[in-house]
């Protein structure tokens, strides 16, 4: 061993160089992947400023400046779409954000390990169900004639509800099915943070005569505030980033007025109508707004709570 290290020492610089070269070789494939599927499409953003034609390509199409953006921000139909996106995003945030925190605090209060495990196992499970299955379940169970909910309502003498045909119900269905699917999973991070609260603090609180509720408010909650803030920053960043999967599946001609959001609009304009420039502009608007939101909320949080992503 000794002789070996002695021999290697003068070569250490070469060794590091060759190691560096090998690291590059290892990461080459992921780099190519990121370049082709993330950075080249970013170049494609130029289409947002063009009347893109497939024949001309990016370099041969006419430049139109901000035409698509003005169109997107001034047409009444697109303004409705932006409004729909914001309402759905804010509603999701308001409901989807606090419930996992409550769930985690509840789970943390429970002393029976078996019951705790049971609740956790059940509430995590829906997270792994696909959007198609989730919406399919909703549609089957809420079917006007054969769905269990309407069958039971009729038995009780209540008129059946056309859940998917009623414009007013769309947002509630979207948000609360989201709670059903993700609340348990989102609670994991808070449960883990709560498990890290020092038992001495709690004991001291008990000695001081604090009730359970007071212990939660003054001991548990302050301990998980940093986690809550980080999650809040992430959630605020995605207010305008409504994922297309579920919305597109829940959309039908009856609720299109409220269910059309930017992501579904980008899909329809770009892929169905092949209006590439306009679609890219709408998509870019969404990306930029959500990026700005994320950075802004992060900065505010840095100032106010001294917790931030970067």
């Amino acid at each position, binding site marked *: 061993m000794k002789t070996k290290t002695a021999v290697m020492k003068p070569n250490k610089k070469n060794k590091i160089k060759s190691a560096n070269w090998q690291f590059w070789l*290892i990461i080459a494939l992921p780099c190519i992947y990121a370049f082709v599927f993330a950075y080249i499409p970013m170049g494609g*953003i130029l289409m947002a400023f063009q009347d893109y034609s497939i024949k001309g390509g990016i370099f041969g199409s006419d430049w139109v400046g901000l035409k698509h953006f003005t169109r997107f921000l001034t047409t009444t139909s697109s303004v409705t779409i932006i409004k729909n996106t914001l309402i759905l995003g804010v509603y999701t945030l308001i409901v989807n954000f606090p419930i996992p925190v409550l769930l985690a605090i*509840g789970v943390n209060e429970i002393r029976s390990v078996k019951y705790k495990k049971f609740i956790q196992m059940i509430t995590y499970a829906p997270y792994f169900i696909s959007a198609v299955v989730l919406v399919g379940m909703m549609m*089957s169970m809420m079917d006007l004639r054969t769905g*269990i909910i309407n069958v039971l309502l009729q038995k009780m003498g209540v008129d059946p509800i056309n859940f998917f045909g009623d414009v007013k119900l769309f947002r509630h269905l979207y948000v609360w099915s989201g709670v059903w699917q993700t609340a348990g999973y989102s609670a994991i991070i808070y449960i883990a943070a709560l498990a890290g609260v020092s038992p001495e603090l709690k004991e001291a609180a008990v000695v001081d005569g604090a009730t359970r509720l007071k212990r939660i408010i003054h001991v548990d909650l302050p301990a998980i505030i940093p986690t809550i803030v980080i999650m809040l920053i992430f959630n605020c960043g995605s207010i305008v980033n409504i994922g297309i999967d579920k919305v597109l599946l829940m959309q039908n001609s009856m609720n299109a007025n409220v269910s059309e959001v930017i992501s579904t609009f980008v899909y329809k304009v770009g892929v169905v109508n092949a209006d590439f420039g306009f679609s890219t502009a709408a998509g870019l608007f969404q990306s930029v707004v959500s990026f700005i939101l994320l950075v802004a909320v992060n900065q505010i949080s840095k100032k106010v709570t001294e917790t931030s992503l970067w």
Partner: protein
Amino acid sequence: MNTKFKNQSLGDKIFIILVYVFLSIAGLAVLYPLIYIVSASFSDPQAVMTGEVVLWPVRVSLKGYQAVFKNPKIMTGFLNSFIYLFLGTALNLVMTMLCAYPLSRKEFKHRNKIAALFVFTMYFSGGLVPTYMVVNKLGLIDTIWAMIIPSAMSTYNMIICRTYMINSIPDEMYEAAQVDGCSPFRYLTRIVTPLCKPILAVLTLYYGVAKWNSYFDAMLYIKKQALQPLTIIMREILILNQVDPTMVSDAKAASEMAGLTALLKYSTIVVASVPVLILYPFVQKHLVKGVMVGAVKG
């Protein structure tokens, strides 16, 4: 600590009871739809239609499953989904390791700059149409590769993996291996990969579930019926309500047909969810770890 129930003050007793009630209601609200779907799928079509099935199966029948397994479209979709699942997840894991490992080694110069370039793609992307055009230019449309290559790696999962490597594999190990003449590549295959097993289990679940559940990529990139994954077929049956009449041809009366159609939907949902549910208990214990590693560096 004062944990015995009878020793607690009245306020605390009421409080803990309320907590139990809240959690039980939440648990039941999550559990009920899952139980109902499975029960309905095993029941008689007529019982499903008339609302006799409330919690447990009524007049157990396998008619729904017979219709599912007789349907060639569902079976092709199932097979395709499996192919995409295996190839896709394997590539996901390899790419993630290849990317996370160099970025976790401090010997690798520029690693922070490269990592920043990867992280940037998490927050900003070219969008739908530009990505579609790249996939199109590469000639991937309507091939199985369209389901595998464009989603070859998730940066978020890669960062989780990298954080795990940095925190749980001591630097001394690398130095010792280097002294013994182990190359960075050998170190990756012989030492890092076995040590990363717990995080790889979590990532397999994340990637696998994402692959199995994805439908939008297929909607964009796959037009050929023979290559459609199960999710697309399910979308036709469950969401667009395009049930092939021959699938429920056993039914004579119209009402029986409607019942069988409803039953078919429940059975399809169960069949499609089984692979994930089989995987779930094995990986569930690792879940918390995965979430925590991811949270250390969002």
